[in-house]
C-alpha cells in the first residue's frame, strides 16, 4: 500500500495538493517530488500543500518540502502549507522552518494570500 496519497485541485489560480499518509524516505518523498516538479513544468507555480492528513514526516520528507519550496520560488512562484498536524507543526518549529514557510489554518485565507 502506498505510504502517501495525493490529489490535486484548482481553486482560481492556486493548485491545492491534498496529501494524506506519510512523507518519508522512499516512495512518499519521491511522489511529492514528482508531483511538485510536474506542476512546475505545467506552469503551475501557486501551490498550496494541504498537510491536514499527514500523520508522519521524517527528515527526508522535510527535505522534500524544502526542495519543493525552493524549486517553486526559483520559478517566481510560491509554495505554501495548509493545515499542519501537531506533529508536523512541532517538527517545522524545532527545525526553524516555520520561519521559512508561509503556513495557514484556513484554506480561503491561504488562497487569498496568493492574490
Amino acid at each position, binding site marked *: 500500500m502506498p505510504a502517501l496519497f495525493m490529489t490535486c485541485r484548482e481553486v482560481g489560480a492556486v493548485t491545492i495538493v491534498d496529501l494524506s499518509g506519510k512523507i518519508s524516505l522512499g516512495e512518499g518523498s519521491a511522489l511529492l517530488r514528482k508531483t511538485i516538479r510536474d506542476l512546475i513544468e505545467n506552469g503551475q507555480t501557486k501551490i498550496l500543500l494541504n498537510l491536514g492528513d499527514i500523520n508522519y514526516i*521524517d527528515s527526508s520528507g522535510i527535505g522534500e518540502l524544502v526542495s519543493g519550496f525552493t524549486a517553486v520560488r526559483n520559478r517566481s512562484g510560491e509554495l505554501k502549507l495548509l493545515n499542519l498536524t501537531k506533529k508536523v507543526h512541532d517538527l517545522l518549529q524545532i527545525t526553524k522552518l516555520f520561519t521559512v514557510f508561509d503556513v495557514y489554518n484556513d484554506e480561503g485565507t491561504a488562497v487569498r494570500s496568493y492574490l
Partner: protein
Amino acid sequence: MTPEAKHLEVILDTHVESVNLAEEMCLRVAEAVGFSEDECYRIGMSVREGVINAFHYGNQEKPDKKIHLALDLTQEKMIIHVMDEGKGFHLADVPDPLAEENLLCTSGRGIFLMKAFMDEFDVVAGRTGGAEIIMSKKIPGPGSASGNGNHGKSNSDAAPQQEA
C-alpha cells in the same frame, strides 16, 4: 514495568525497507516497556533517522554493506545503537541545520532530530569500522510523565558507554 537487562541485535541490509523495519521493531519494544505514545513516536523517529543515516551517509546505499542495530534495556533506560560500515564521522563536523545559511538545505536534519528527541546522544567509532550512533531514553517509572526538553541540545557527555 521494570525490565531486567536485555539485549537485542539485528543485522539489516542496506535497503530503504530496513528503515521501516528498524523503526517498527524498536517501536514495539518501546511500547512494551511502557513509553507513552508521544515518546514512542520520538524513539521511532530517532531510530528511523539513525538507520537513514547509516543507509545513506554511512554505507552510501551500497547493498554489500550492512546496518547493525542493537537495543539494550536496562532498569533505567532504553539504549539504541546503530552501526554502519562506512568511514565514520565526527559530530563536530556536522553542519548546524538551524544556522541561517543551512535552513534551506534539503538534508542534514537527521542528527539534529535524534538529539532533540532522545535524552542522550553520541557518535563513536563503531566496531564495524564505521560510525556508531548511541542514543538512549529514560524508561518511565510508574505514574511518571516521561518527557524531554532537549530540543536539539547534545548530551554527548552523558552518553552511554559502548557495549562490548
